[in-house]
């Protein structure tokens, strides 16, 4: 006897022939894995795409971005935000003057209005800001210019348009240099902002008009307090330092004890990112659980059909044993069949998953990120599922008694 172990190539040949002989059954066996792996790939791709777009949105807020709101930081006891703003433009000036860790400061006032240009009109929100605003939000004009410090000091009737507003009011021509009327006040359009896209809530950030905050307060809203202050720290590692300095300056100006409840609150880009990161982490875990369950179901499907297959092929196993197959040969053959089906199913599933992801991207315009890691992982899991769920039926086949197996009808 030359070798006691049947050569692996023979086992694979026997297994492949058995698969080829039963194409329909083989396909049905693999179907669970095809769908399971396809599901994992698509779900992870969509999840990654969602995470990625949230990250992009948060980054689009601007670099080292801090928002400063009026009101109580936490609603301890019965205290709550009353709606009366506690922040003034002077607060913004003081922060700019006294906080070395703060690079740019822009008071922000909001108003809503109908904007008219010739025969066209468009309802949108108007944001009153300072000249620092484009630097804070990393948001430049694509056409014309932004307004100047002079315009802010003089409360000039000038504005820049978001692309959505520009497209709606001036569909055929250049917006810069035109006149628009806001609450019957004529404003000169100095420029148009770059396209920014949606924010985290899905709102179109380009559906806005930007004007000097002084102008908005004086001509449009009549408010004397400002709605919020937007700032940026000089660098990423100075964000906390900047928040500490702002806290100190505002407590002094608003006469609040260091341990008292502040009448303002701050939120940094980092904190927003963390909050949404926690959300996407939950989303990710949820998706992975779904994906895991579908692979498990696929694996059970393989085991199920392999068990049926062992019963159905009892006679075949008996023949193989009668003519000299050892238990080990039968075990390896069935295991090889299961693993091959799982791997082929995994490969088809990957193709299906990528195809489904691309379809979602194309037809639903969702952002999709297919990572090599998710492909490798689901492929590995498919192979493991094949071994794990193929072993029991294979062992059952290997333990059959050849006499009984040959008599099986």
């Amino acid at each position, binding site marked *: 006897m*030359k070798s006691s172990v049947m050569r692996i190539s023979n086992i694979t040949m026997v297994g492949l022939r058995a698969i080829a*002989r039963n194409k329909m059954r083989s396909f049905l066996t693999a179907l669970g894995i095809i769908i399971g792996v396809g599901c994992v790939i698509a779900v992870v791709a969509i999840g990654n795409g969602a995470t990625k777009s949230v990250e992009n949105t948060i980054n689009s807020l601007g670099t080292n971005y801090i928002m400063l709101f009026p009101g109580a930081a936490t609603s301890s006891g019965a205290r709550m935000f009353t709606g009366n703003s506690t922040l003034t433009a002077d607060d913004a000036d003081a922060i700019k003057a006294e906080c070395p860790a703060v690079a740019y400061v822009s008071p922000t006032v909001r108003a809503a209005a109908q904007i008219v240009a010739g025969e066209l009109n468009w309802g949108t929100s108007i944001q009153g800001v300072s000249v620092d605003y484009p630097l804070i939000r990393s948001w430049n004009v694509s056409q014309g210019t932004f307004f100047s410090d002079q315009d802010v000091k003089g409360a000039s009737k000038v504005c820049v348009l978001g692309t959505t507003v520009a497209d709606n009011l001036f569909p055929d021509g250049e917006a810069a240099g035109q006149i628009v009327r806001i609450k019957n006040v004529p404003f000169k359009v100095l420029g148009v902002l770059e396209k920014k896209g949606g924010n985290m809530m899905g709102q179109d950030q380009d559906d806005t008009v930007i004007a000097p905050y002084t102008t908005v307060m004086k001509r449009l809203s009549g408010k004397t307090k400002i709605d919020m202050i937007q700032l940026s720290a000089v660098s990423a590692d100075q964000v906390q330092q900047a928040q500490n300095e702002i806290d100190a300056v505002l407590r002094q100006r608003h006469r609040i004890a260091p341990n008292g409840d502040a009448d303002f609150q701050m939120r940094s880009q980092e904190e927003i990112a963390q909050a949404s990161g926690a959300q996407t982490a939950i989303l990710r875990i949820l998706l992975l659980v779904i994906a895991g369950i579908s692979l498990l179901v696929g694996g059970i499907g393989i085991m199920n059909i392999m068990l049926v297959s062992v019963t159905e092929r009892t006679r075949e196993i*008996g023949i*193989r*044993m009668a*003519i*000299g197959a050892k238990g080990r040969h039968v075990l390896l053959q069935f295991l090889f069949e299961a693993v091959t089906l799982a791997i082929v199913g995994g490969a088809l599933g990957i193709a299906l998953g990528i195809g489904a992801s691309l379809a979602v991207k194309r037809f639903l315009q969702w952002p999709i990120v297919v990572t090599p890691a998710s492909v490798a992982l689901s492929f590995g899991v498919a192979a493991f599922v094949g071994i794990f769920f193929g072993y029991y039926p294979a062992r059952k086949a290997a333990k059959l008694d050849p006499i009984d197996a*040959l008599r099986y009808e």
Partner: protein
Amino acid sequence: MVHEPNDPKKVIEIHGLTKVYEMGEVEVRALAGVDLLVDEGEFLAVMGPSGSGKSTLMNILGCLDRPTDGTYLLDGVDVSTLNRDERAVIRNAKIGFVFQSFNLLPRTSAAENVELPLIYGDLGWSRAERRKAAMDALFRVGLKGREHSHSSQLSGGQQQRVAIARALVTNPAMLLADEPTGNLDSRTSEEIIGIFQSLNDSGKTVVLITHEPDIAQHAKRVVTVRDGVIQNDEKIQQHRVGVRDNVSGIGPPVPAIAAEATS
């Protein structure tokens, strides 16, 4: 039996073989002390009604089962105490099975069916060598030209020929046929039995299990099993001859196979 001084080689040597099945509390003695000697080149028919122990004997002869007691030398090897895997190796190397219901793999070509024992064997043959041996075996049973037909495309007689080719392909010490004509019409039965006779003429030892006296009469010797013992053992002087005209190419074993199988 009378033994001559220059006895031919014994293929089967069985002494005091018993087989007891335990069915719960009850013990069933299927074989109650069987002695049997079969020379190389014999054509032996084993007869007996159902329940006689014939099937049990066939299972033990075929190394599918182990005796409870007694010894069984197959081609000089004591196989009565071998474990499952060792018996699988012996079955592969020394026994060629032919079954009543043909037992070919479905949706598999004749050539692939015949190759199967070589795949499980330890001969270390290449694919081409296996294919060549399968073709030769199919040629010997008169199936040249049907190598690529699947079982469903073959008649019962042709399927049984494929099964005989599969049994032959490893050049075993004996062919063990269990009711090989049970599913065939009488004309085809004669053809199949003719193939066994031709193979026997070329030196192959054949053991035929049957309950049909007509079929048994084709053998050179008939033993009858009853109640777990051999009741009768007779030589057939004028044995019947099966149909041979349809069989071609039956000759001595392929030398390569013979050399490998006895190593």
